[in-house]
């Protein structure tokens, strides 16, 4: 199983470069052109990253979550979850940047190879920002009655998040 994870990236690179050469694309110049776009994209998301790191850090540092979990303890009882993972799971479908900021926090505190580090990585990878995509796509064509789109999308996210927990326990 591990081998698939290990060879996915090199195989993609080989395939892309090989096919590019075969189709007589100027691979080097094209690479530079794309890389420049990537640079611009990254700088474009910088303000959002600053904003989200700022808000998430205040929220996590205030330890208000410990308080909420204490309140909920009689109800959820015994479930041993790291405090950071809950808001991350909740925020994932809403804002990719917010959950990225939490993942960053988790890596900083526990390291990327810890159990919670693995869990947060898979959580970040298992779904897209459903609410944002639905809002953007439907508003672009002025559809207001979206029927069951949101619920099905959130249901899919929920399944993805549950699978992230299960798979982390299974794999690591």
């Amino acid at each position, binding site marked *: 199983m591990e081998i698939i994870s290990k060879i996915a990236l090199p195989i993609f690179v080989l395939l892309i470069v090989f096919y590019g050469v075969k189709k007589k694309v100027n691979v080097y110049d094209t690479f530079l052109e794309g890389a420049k776009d990537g640079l611009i994209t990254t700088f474009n998301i910088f303000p959002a990253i600053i904003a989200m790191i700022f808000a998430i850090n*205040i*929220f996590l540092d205030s330890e208000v979550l410990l308080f909420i979990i204490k309140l909920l303890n009689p109800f959820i009882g015994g479930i041993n979850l790291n405090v950071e993972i809950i808001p991350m799971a909740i925020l994932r479908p809403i804002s990719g940047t917010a959950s990225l900021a939490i993942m960053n926090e988790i890596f900083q505190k526990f390291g990327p190879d810890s159990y919670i580090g693995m869990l947060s990585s898979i959580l970040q990878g298992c779904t897209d920002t459903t609410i944002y995509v639905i809002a953007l796509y439907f508003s672009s064509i002025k559809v207001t009655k979206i029927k069951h789109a949101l619920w099905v999308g959130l249901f899919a996210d929920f399944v993805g998040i549950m699978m992230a927990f299960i798979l982390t326990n299974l794999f690591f």
Partner: protein
Amino acid sequence: MVSYIWAFLIIIGLIYSFFSGRIEVINKSILANATEALDLILSLLPIIVLWTGMLKIAEESGLLDKFAKLLNPILSKLFPDVPKDNKALGYISSNIAANMLGLGSAATPAGLKAMSELQKLNQKKDTATTPMITFLVLNTAGVTLIPTTILALRVAYNSGNPEIIILPAILATASSSIAGLTLDYFIRKKKKKWK
């Protein structure tokens, strides 16, 4: 939506820390925050730039289109209401293909075009059609083969095995897509019965 959540996080965090006496910690963290954001963006930057460069080659050489064509037979099954030669299917497959390769910025334009093509087939312009919903479910489940940002961050924090999460992440996202599509399928069937 994001605006409310952002404000909520800040306001709740600050008010609670006034009561809990953690305001000093917050004070320090506000000042350190911006640097942390810069560190984050700097650790993401190299792999994003590298990967967008790679994918540009895939785009120019037609590999992305080829990849999209592979998806076509599956797509025509998922979208029985869309005519087989409709442009929408092409846009949908390039959207999904771009998403799979972690090329979000190329996925969005294709996705928006797919939506406007689907809107042309729509009888009631303010109401979502079934193909639109199926497309969004497929899209939001976000099947990503190469999760570049996550890999970048794992590398930045000296992970011994940054790529180990790829397979479990693919499995998680695949089950989320399948679950979404199944639910969507049953809702569609049920609605047809009511009619």
